[in-house]
C-alpha cells in the first residue's frame, strides 16, 4: 500500500503543475511554484519518518535525548528541507519583486499581456 503522505505530496505537485499551466494571474503562478515545492518538501520529510520497533518517532531534538525512550526521525531530510525552504523564500521574494515590476510596466497581472517579446 502506498503511504498516504506520498499520495498527498503527489496531489500537491499535480495541483501546482495544473495551476502553473492553466492559471493566468501572475500571483497565482507564483503560488503554484510554491505549492509544487511544498509537495516535494512533504515527500522529502516523509522519507525520514521511520517507525522502528513499533514506536512513534519524535523530532530530532538533542537536548535531553537520553531521557527520550522512543526513536527519532532521521535528521538529514529535515536539514535538506530547511535548505530547500530557504531557497524557496529567495525565489518567492524575487518573483514577487518581478511581479510588482511587471504590474508597473503592463498595468495588469494577466500573463497573456506579457507577450511583447516576439520573433
Amino acid at each position, binding site marked *: 500500500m502506498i503511504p498516504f503522505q506520498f499520495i498527498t505530496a503527489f496531489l500537491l505537485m499535480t495541483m501546482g503543475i495544473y495551476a502553473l499551466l492553466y492559471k493566468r494571474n501572475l500571483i497565482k503562478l507564483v503560488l503554484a511554484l510554491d505549492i509544487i515545492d511544498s509537495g516535494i518538501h512533504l515527500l522529502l520529510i516523509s522519507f525520514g519518518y521511520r517507525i522502528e520497533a513499533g514506536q512513534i518517532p519524535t523530532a530530532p531534538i538533542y537536548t535531553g535525548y537520553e531521557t527520550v525512550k522512543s526513536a527519532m526521525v532521521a535528521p538529514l531530510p529535515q536539514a535538506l528541507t*530547511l535548505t530547500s525552504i530557504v531557497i524557496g*523564500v529567495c525565489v518567492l521574494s524575487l518573483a514577487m519583486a518581478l511581479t510588482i515590476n511587471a504590474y508597473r510596466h503592463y498595468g495588469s497581472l494577466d500573463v497573456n499581456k506579457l507577450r511583447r517579446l516576439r520573433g
Partner: protein
Amino acid sequence: MGSDMGLIVKTTARATIPLIGIFGAYIVSHGHLTPGGGFQGGATIAGAGILFLIAFGFGEMKRRYDHHLYSALEGLGGLAFLGIAMLGMGVAFFYNTLWHSGPFFNGQPGTLLSAGYLPVMNLAVGLKVFAGLVSAMVAIAAYGRWKE
C-alpha cells in the same frame, strides 16, 4: 499619508514588537539545541520589522531604515559566516575547530555553550537573514509608491 493603522493596532504593535524580537533572539541563540536556528530566528526578528512597517506605515519606516547600513550588515553576516567556516582551514573548510580544540563553545553537548561554531554561525546567519528580509520588504513596499 494614510498608510498607517489605527490606535489599537499601533499600541498592540508597540507592545508585541519587543516580544517578537526577544523570541527571535531566543530561536537564534538556541539554534544548535532546539528546532530553529539562524534562518528561522532571523525571519522571526524580521517579522517584527515587517509588523512595524505595516502598523506605522512606510513613511515612519523610511525614517528609521538606512539602506547602506542594512546592506553592510548583510555583508557582515555573510563575511562572519565565511570567516568562521575558515577557522579550521588547517584541516578542512568548515572543520569545527572550536568544538574539537577551541577555547570556548566546547562544553557538554546539550548545554548552551557547546557545539563549536554552530551558535556563532547561527548568529551570523540570523543577522544576514534579518537584514536581508527587512531590506527586501522595504524595497517591495517602496515599489507600491510609484504612483505618488
